[in-house]
């Protein structure tokens, strides 16, 4: 701590919080784009028997929901 005196606890928290929140927010946008893309691709080619396209839709939605949850978790915890 002596080597970097400006990094007090409050400064360090702020320095870490803002980039983490920005990154997670960008990731939420990315996961939303991915979710929409999976839905549109599922309409292009449909494999009926195994319902893999529906499964991929669900995975993409869970991925999006997790990223949104992470954003709110980091907003509360940090």
């Amino acid at each position, binding site marked *: 701590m002596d080597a970097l005196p400006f990094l007090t606890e409050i400064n360090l928290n702020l320095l870490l919080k803002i980039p*983490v929140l920005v990154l997670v927010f960008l990731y939420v946008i990315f996961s939303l784009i991915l979710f929409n893309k999976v839905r549109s691709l599922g309409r292009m080619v449909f494999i009926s028997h195994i319902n893999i396209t529906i499964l991929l839709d669900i995975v993409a939605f869970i991925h999006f929901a*997790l990223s949104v949850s992470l954003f709110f978790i980091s907003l509360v915890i940090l």
Partner: protein
Amino acid sequence: MPDIFVDTDQNQPQPPQPQKKTQETAELPLNGSLPPKPRHRHEIGTLEAFCEYPKGVTFQHQENDEEIILFLRQHFITNVPWIIITILLAITPFILIPFLRFSSLFPFTIPDKFLFVSLLFYYLIIIGYAFVNFLHWFYNIGIVTNKRVVDLDYTAIVHVHVAATKVLQIQDVNYVQTGFLRTLFNFGDVFIQTAGQNLNFEFLRVPRPSKATFIIQKLIGIA
């Protein structure tokens, strides 16, 4: 004096005219023939990369009388690099975090709550990475029907390229299979050359390229 115009009787029955089959409605060229259908068409598997006459597969803008003859994807072995990278990335924090905690590389310690959020974010990114790579493999599809060849390329998150050409416009089909892994696992690149200004089609790293090439050649009547 010769008649210039003779009105035909509207009520007189006309002989039936044979329907001319235009090039647009013709399904195959004269020499072309469909490969023999298997006795039992099987359902396509989740991870199947080569399927003749797949059952239960449809694609956008498929016509009613259009039948899928060949369904192609990249060989599953091509997924191995990203699977290994995902596993390595997943186990990295278990090695890196204890190492950084007990070493004095950083002049300060990262608070636990930041470490927790960062770790969650890191694993979410790994899940996203694996998912995107799987989608790239899953939606890079080549479809050969009795009427046309469709190539669906999903190469980036926001880039999807769909190309199609009629079977009649295909001029040549060939394949390249070089390298140890390709020979061992029997996969290679199939190239379809089309007439004129149209795009050429490439089905890269597909299994059994010789058979795929033979099927398309048979379809266009050069085999």
